């Protein structure tokens, strides 16, 4: 068992390794899946990024386009304004005249009015009229001084070229004349009198433009909120690129911030001034990667750059990329878990299958071994000898019944021919049925003698699939016991036949008909013939109802049917009376044999039944007499009750009268009575008193007989102690030694037992009053297996000759003058003991004390 289970375990271990090889393709599939998923996510993200870039580029480019257009428009408007001033003849004429004659007040008024009109639109912060020397002639607002020296160049250009000169963004003192500078643009328009064309201009209009009013807001305005995006305006200034507006990320940049173009090849501003246009990636003035759209602003030296930090532009993309990567990762992890779980399940199922296969194999193996053992054990357990022979009659197997015989040792007989081993011959013996079996291919039986015993030999052929004899089975049964049993049976038969014939009981044997409707008499013994007044020859072979028709009427036939049906033996009496006289009485016992035959055994008990009947009548008479007596007794009891009532009531009344009137006599007539007369009266009173006590005692006695018993566990020791206590109180002058055994209990009526013990102990107390060293004992012991209680004193005692009378009422052992008493005490005690089912007796010696013994509940304890 152990080795096979170990091999099963090692098989399973192999199976586990094998199983891992089988399922290892899971891992590459999983890796491939992960890679494909990774590539899918990556390519999707790349596509997304491209789309995003395109969209950002478009956005930036369109914003740049719009801004470039707007700024160009704004610039051309300013230029248009300048051209309009330049080419308005009236204005030029008035300006020219006023420069010539600055004192002309009306002209100044007119010019100023016009300048204010001109000045009113946005974008202009200052308008001044300068004469040919560059001195200020007129100014709106009026409180500004002459333009600074910075502008000399523009002034002279305008004077010389006689055309409009525009001054690009530059720093100048602020418009309120405070310290510091602000950024401005300005237009320098020569004043040329239209009536004197070709002359040198008489002066120059200076119009200052404040870019903060429209230009910079135009540059800065942005439709969507963004943290990093901004637009900026730059221009080339020599080797530098110059930032024209204030920037978002650095302060005071306008016209202050500049970079050398050569050194900043990736700066969008540098790229712009180098002539690059479109959307480009670069690094802005902060050194951050930005996406920028660059446009040249037509009509100006400016470039507009619209840019946004690359980090912001791609922020959403990166968020999405991380999200996708995480989702992919989670998906892959999930997939790996599922794959691993699936693989584990496959592994486990496969393993379980292997284990169950292994178990099944093991079970089949065990089953096979068990079947083999079953057959071997069965083979060996059969008490008949069994030999299996091959077709050549050589012994293949022999069971234990054969090999146990020392003559046929297994090792010595296997392989040898049957007859050689069994009979010591060279061919089958004459009685052997083997040749017959070989010929007929059918089993055959023979009885023959082997080793001095009779055996029954049965040979069965074993046929192969083609129906040819492959071998034979020989079963050898020892039948010598059977032969002996047959003889024993014959002997026994003879004994029982003798018994049957000579027994005094009648016996008949019946065989039921097949349908059980009747019984055929098979046999009857001599006693049976006598009892039934029949002859064997006349009734055997007949049906019972024919031979004895009265069996039906007497119910015996029904009894036969019942016993035949149920198989249960039963007794049944059949009898007949002629008038009151019993004719016969048979006591039948009917039983069924295993063979199905019924046997009836019967006795003639007529005489006995007659005797029983006489007995029964006698008993009935007796019972009747008991009933009558009981009734008489009940009447007597009633009368006794009435008597005791009348004693209690009626007898005492006259007694009281006697006592009462005697007392009255003694009281009322004492002066007329002498001492003897008084003594007589006293005697009368005493006697009535005593009679009263006698009546009292008698009543108590009768009440004890009537009282209902209420049995409980009673502590007799306690009661005895209390009685003694009371006696000591009552007779303080007496000195009595008392010995009360502790723990004496009895089962009985507490009240009655107390009365009983009181009487006994009082008696002992009374009859020991003349004894100097009085001793009273109470206790119990076991005598003849019975609990016996006793009250003992060492007092007066009495002659045992009178002991019998002691317990009768009014019987006294002593003179009243020696020991007073009513004579009912012990009668009461005896009645109480009797009512408790006990006995009371006494042992006494005159002048040497008495011992009262009693038992309670005799036979119950």
């Amino acid at each position, binding site marked *: 068992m152990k080795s096979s289970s170990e091999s099963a375990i090692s098989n399973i271990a192999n199976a586990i390794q094998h199983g891992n090889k089988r399922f290892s393709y899971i891992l590459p599939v999983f890796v491939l899946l992960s890679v494909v998923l990774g590539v899918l996510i990556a390519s999707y993200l790349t596509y997304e990024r491209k789309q995003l870039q395109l969209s950002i580029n478009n956005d930036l480019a369109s914003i740049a386009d719009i801004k470039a257009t707007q700024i160009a428009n704004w610039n051309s408007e300013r230029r248009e304004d300048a051209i309009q001033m330049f080419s308005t003849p009236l204005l030029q004429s008035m300006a020219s005249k006023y420069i010539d004659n600055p004192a002309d007040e009306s002209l100044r008024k007119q010019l100023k009015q016009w300048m204010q009109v001109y000045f009113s639109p946005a974008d202009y912060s200052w308008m001044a009229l300068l004469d040919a020397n560059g001195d200020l002639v007129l100014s709106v607002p009026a409180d500004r001084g002459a333009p600074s020296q910075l502008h000399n160049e523009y002034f002279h250009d305008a004077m010389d070229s006689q055309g409009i000169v525009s001054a690009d963004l530059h720093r100048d003192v602020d418009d309120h004349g405070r310290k510091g500078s602000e950024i401005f643009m300005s237009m320098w328009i020569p004043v040329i009198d239209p009536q004197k064309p070709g002359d040198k201009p008489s002066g120059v209009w200076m119009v200052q433009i404040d870019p903060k009013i429209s230009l910079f807001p135009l540059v800065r305005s942005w439709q969507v909120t963004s943290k990093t995006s901004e637009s900026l305006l730059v221009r080339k200034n020599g080797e530098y690129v110059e930032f024209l507006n204030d920037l978002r990320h650095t302060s005071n940049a306008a016209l202050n911030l500049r970079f050398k173009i050569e050194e900043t090849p990736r700066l969008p501003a540098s790229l712009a001034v180098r002539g690059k246009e479109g959307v480009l990636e670069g690094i802005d003035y902060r050194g951050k990667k930005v996406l920028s759209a660059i446009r040249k602003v037509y009509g100006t030296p400016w470039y507009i750059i619209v840019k946004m930090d690359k980090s912001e532009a791609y922020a959403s993309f990166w968020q999405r990329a991380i999200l996708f990567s995480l989702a992919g990762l989670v998906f892959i992890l999930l997939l790996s878990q599922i794959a691993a779980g699936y693989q584990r399940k496959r592994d486990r199922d496969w393993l379980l299958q292997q284990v169950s296969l292994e178990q099944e194999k093991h079970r089949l193996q065990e089953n096979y071994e068990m079947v083999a053992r079953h057959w071997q054990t069965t083979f060996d357990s059969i008490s008949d000898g069994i030999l299996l022979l091959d077709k050549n009659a050589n012994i293949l197997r022999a069971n234990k019944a054969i090999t146990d015989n020392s003559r046929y040792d297994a090792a010595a007989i296997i392989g040898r021919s049957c007859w050689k081993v069994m009979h010591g011959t060279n061919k089958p013996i004459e009685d052997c049925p083997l040749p017959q079996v070989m010929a007929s291919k059918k089993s055959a039986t023979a009885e023959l003698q082997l080793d001095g015993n009779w055996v029954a030999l049965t040979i069965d052929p074993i046929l192969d699939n083609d129906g040819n004899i492959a071998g034979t089975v020989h079963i050898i049964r020892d039948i010598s016991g059977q032969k002996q049993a047959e003889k024993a049976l014959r002997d026994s038969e003879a004994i029982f036949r003798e018994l049957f014939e000579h027994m005094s009981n009648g016996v008949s044997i019946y065989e039921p008909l097949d349908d059980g409707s009747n019984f055929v008499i098979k046999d009857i013994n001599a006693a049976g013939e006598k009892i039934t007044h029949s002859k064997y020859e006349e009734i055997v072979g007949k049906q019972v109802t024919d031979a004895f028709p009265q069996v039906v009427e007497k119910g015996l036939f029904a009894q036969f049917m019942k016993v035949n049906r149920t198989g249960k033996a039963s007794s049944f009496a059949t009898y007949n009376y002629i008038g009151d006289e019993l004719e016969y009485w048979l006591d039948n016992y009917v039983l069924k044999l295993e063979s199905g035959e019924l046997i009836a055994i019967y006795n003639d008990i007529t005489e006995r039944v007659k005797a029983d009947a006489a007995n029964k009548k006698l008993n009935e008479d007796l019972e009747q007499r008991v009933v009558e007596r009981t009734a008489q007794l009940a009447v007597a009891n009633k009368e006794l009750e009435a008597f005791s009532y009348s004693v*209690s009531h*009626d007898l005492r009344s006259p007694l009281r009268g006697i006592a009462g009137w005697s*007392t009255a006599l003694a009281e009322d007539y004492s002066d007329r009575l002498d001492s003897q007369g008084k003594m007589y009266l006293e005697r009368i009173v005493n006697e009535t008193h005593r009679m009263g006590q006698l009546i009292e005692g008698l009543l108590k006695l009768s009440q004890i007989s009537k009282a209902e018993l209420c049995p409980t566990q009673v502590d007799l020791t306690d009661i005895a102690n209390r009685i003694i206590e009371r006696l000591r109180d009552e007779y303080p002058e007496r000195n009595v030694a008392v010995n009360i055994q502790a723990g004496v209990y009895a089962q009985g009526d507490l009240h009655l037992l107390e009365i009983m013990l009181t009487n006994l102990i009082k008696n002992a107390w009374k009859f020991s009053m003349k004894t100097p060293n009085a001793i009273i004992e109470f206790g119990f012991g076991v005598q003849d297996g019975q609990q016996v209680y006793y009250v003992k004193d060492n007092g007066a005692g009495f002659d045992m000759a009178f002991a019998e009378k002691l317990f009768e009422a009014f019987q006294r052992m002593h003179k009243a003058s020696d020991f007073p008493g009513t004579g009912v005490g012990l009668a009461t005690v005896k009645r109480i003991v009797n009512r408790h089912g006990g006995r009371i007796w006494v042992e006494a010696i005159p002048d040497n004390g008495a011992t009262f013994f009693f038992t309670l509940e005799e036979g119950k304890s």
Partner: protein
Amino acid sequence: MNKTILLVEDNPSDIELTKRALSKSRIANELVVKEDGKEALDYVLQECCAPGALLPALILLDLKLPKVDGLTVLKTLRSDERTRRIPIVILTTSSEQLDISSSYDLGANSYIRKPVDFNQFVEAVNSLGLYWLVVNEAPPY
């Protein structure tokens, strides 16, 4: 204070002895004696219950009486609204358990067995007179 005691007793000797015992006990109440149960009932229910008449302050009742026995007298008086509160003391020779329990069941106030000894009898009458006529608060009518 001068209320009557009714003694229901048929034995002339006992009647006289009771009278003697009462006088020896200095009980001066008027004593009315009825010698059978019927007379006793007639006296209480008719004479005493007439307008202006007084019920006895105490009834001493024997059980064994001619015509109507003591227990029936007790039962009748106790079942009548007018007389059910009169103190009734059973004064009898009987010490039968059944008599004692029946008397109490029917509403006797006390049960006294006449002792044979006259001195004890005097003592008994003395104590019951003292108790029922002096110590005890009589029922209101």
